[in-house]
């Protein structure tokens, strides 16, 4: 997709979001959902960059998100680091973790990468719950309960004054998404695509697989860590339960609805799915069942997501 179209789609999505608080600004419930939309849009886009563009089948995105959230929360509570600094440090921490996870993955292919990253996800929960977690201040099975909200120059962005918080989230989310967009359209993005399509050929042209694969791990885990840390400060409480599979499946549905490897699609998908999953709240426990089934159905029936449909429709329009 051309840069012009990407900017247009992102602009429309975020533009609508930016206008909405005028109408629903005093309904806290709706505002919360919108903030979640913005946060998940970043995570889904990072995952899309990883899977759809770099072609690395990583299932560790939720783990990085939780790592970032916990890191920043622990720094803010245990070591009373100001939240803004804590968020940045959490981002750097997850970036380092991303590189550490990425290193063994460089030599591996296909399901092995998926498994190592999924293993990170699986191993994180006992770490956070167990004695190691308690020693570093994760709060064990209770979790973190009193994470201070972000405050800039003494103004605190908590859920008490939700409209300014919303715009702060919008700014953060938009800048993360723009970083991802420009990465995709830069030399890096082309290198990712080349490595995905044919690693041997790309390497013969002088593209270092080592460098770019580590780069994508570092970048996506940095952004995911930052947004995870922000989520922790906004929400105020964290629990290891976030690592349960619900969140994982919802995130996957976002990416599949948007279309894997059709970048702004994941932003659009995230907005749609977060709102949709709130509408599905009356289903209760059946919501998770539906999400799992949706993943299966979407993979089978809608291989390129909404973006694929959109592109196909445009092609048909211009052809006839």
């Amino acid at each position, binding site marked *: 997709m051309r840069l012009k179209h990407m900017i247009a789609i992102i602009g429309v999505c975020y533009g609508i979001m930016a206008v909405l608080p005028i109408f629903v600004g005093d309904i806290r419930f709706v505002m919360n959902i919108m903030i979640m939309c913005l946060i998940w849009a970043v995570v889904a886009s990072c995952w899309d960059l990883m899977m759809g563009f770099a072609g690395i089948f990583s299932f560790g995105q939720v783990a990085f998100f939780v790592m970032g959230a916990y890191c920043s929360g622990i720094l803010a509570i245990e070591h009373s680091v100001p939240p803004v600094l804590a968020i940045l440090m959490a981002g750097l921490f997850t970036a380092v973790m991303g590189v550490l996870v990425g290193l063994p993955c460089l030599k*591996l292919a296909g399901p092995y990468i998926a498994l190592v990253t999924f293993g990170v996800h699986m*191993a994180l929960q006992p770490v956070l719950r*167990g004695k190691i977690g308690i020693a570093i201040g994760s709060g064990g099975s209770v979790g973190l309960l009193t994470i201070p909200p972000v405050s800039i120059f003494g103004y605190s962005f908590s859920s008490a004054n939700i409209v300014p918080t919303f715009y702060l989230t919008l700014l953060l989310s938009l800048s993360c998404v723009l970083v991802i967009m420009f990465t995709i359209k830069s030399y890096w993005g082309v290198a990712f695509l080349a490595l995905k399509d044919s690693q041997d050929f790309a390497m013969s042209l002088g593209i270092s697989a080592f460098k770019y694969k580590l780069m994508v791990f570092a970048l996506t885990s940095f952004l995911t860590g930052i947004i995870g840390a922000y989520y922790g400060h906004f929400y105020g409480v964290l629990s290891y339960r976030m690592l349960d599979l619900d969140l994982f499946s919802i995130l*996957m549905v976002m990416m599949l609805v948007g279309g894997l490897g059709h970048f702004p699609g994941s932003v659009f998908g995230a907005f749609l799915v977060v709102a949709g999953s709130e509408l599905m709240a009356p289903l209760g*426990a059946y919501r998770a*069942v539906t999400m799992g089934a949706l993943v*299966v159905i979407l993979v*089978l029936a809608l291989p390129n997501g909404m973006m694929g449909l959109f592109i196909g429709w445009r092609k048909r329009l211009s052809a006839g």
Partner: protein
Amino acid sequence: MFSEDTILLFYEITDVIIAGLSTGSVYALMAVGMTLVYGVTKAFNFAYGDFFNMGGYFAWILIVGLGLEFGGYPVVLLIVMPLLFAVGYGLEKLLVAPLRKRKDWENKVMMMTLGLALFLTSLYMVVFGVRMKSLPPILEGTWEVGQLVFSYQDIMIFVMSISGILIFAWVLNNTRIGMAVRAVAQNPVGATIVGIPKERIFATTFAISTVMVGFGGILLSQKWFINPNSGGIIMVKAWVVTALGGMGSIRGGLYAAFIIGMLEAFVGWMFGMSYGIIALFVLLLATLVLRPQGLRGKGE
């Protein structure tokens, strides 16, 4: 000669070794199923651990839910195993086969089966509740040699899973269908040319692996309880065993399964059960870095 403490420690370690052997044997069964399905169909099944729980739940429905009186476990196995075969065959035909025609279908299959895993996990939670279910032991009582106590249950688990593997190996090496499966694994195109129905072999191997892991589920659930949430961890375990043993090597899988069963039993005994998965993950990383082809694998 020895102090009281040393003797107690000795008995304790023996218990841990027995536990490691009986879980290890089931891991071997699961790993063989996994190496089979990945080796033949090249489809990686993320829902593998949930089929383990499916076996457990089917047995639970029959024994506890319906209160099956006569026959006990032989009858249960006779009912559950064909059922699992049918489920595996149907799912392959319905979900995996259509994907096989797409480009980069291996990744699509991974995503689809992960979705299936999420679906099954949450379905179990809705249908059976979050609380764990327990199955009665296959054989009650113990066998005492001096002061050493072996429960019949552990012995039965060991014997049944090892004989399961042996039967499987015999089928693979000595029957026509086993030959067809090996032919498809070696060269799908060549196998099609000589008239082997490739699609049917794919579905059959998927179904066989479902039966094997479900059988493992019935065996191990008697000791562990059936936990709806455990599918992911079990899948990772089966995969670690497969990776350590070397893809495509049944004997390597056996060695690896016992190593991992022991490792888990000892780590659980010394540090607590929740550290088992961490130890396993460290072992997986070490294997992949030091010897990516596994203990007995042939390498790429």
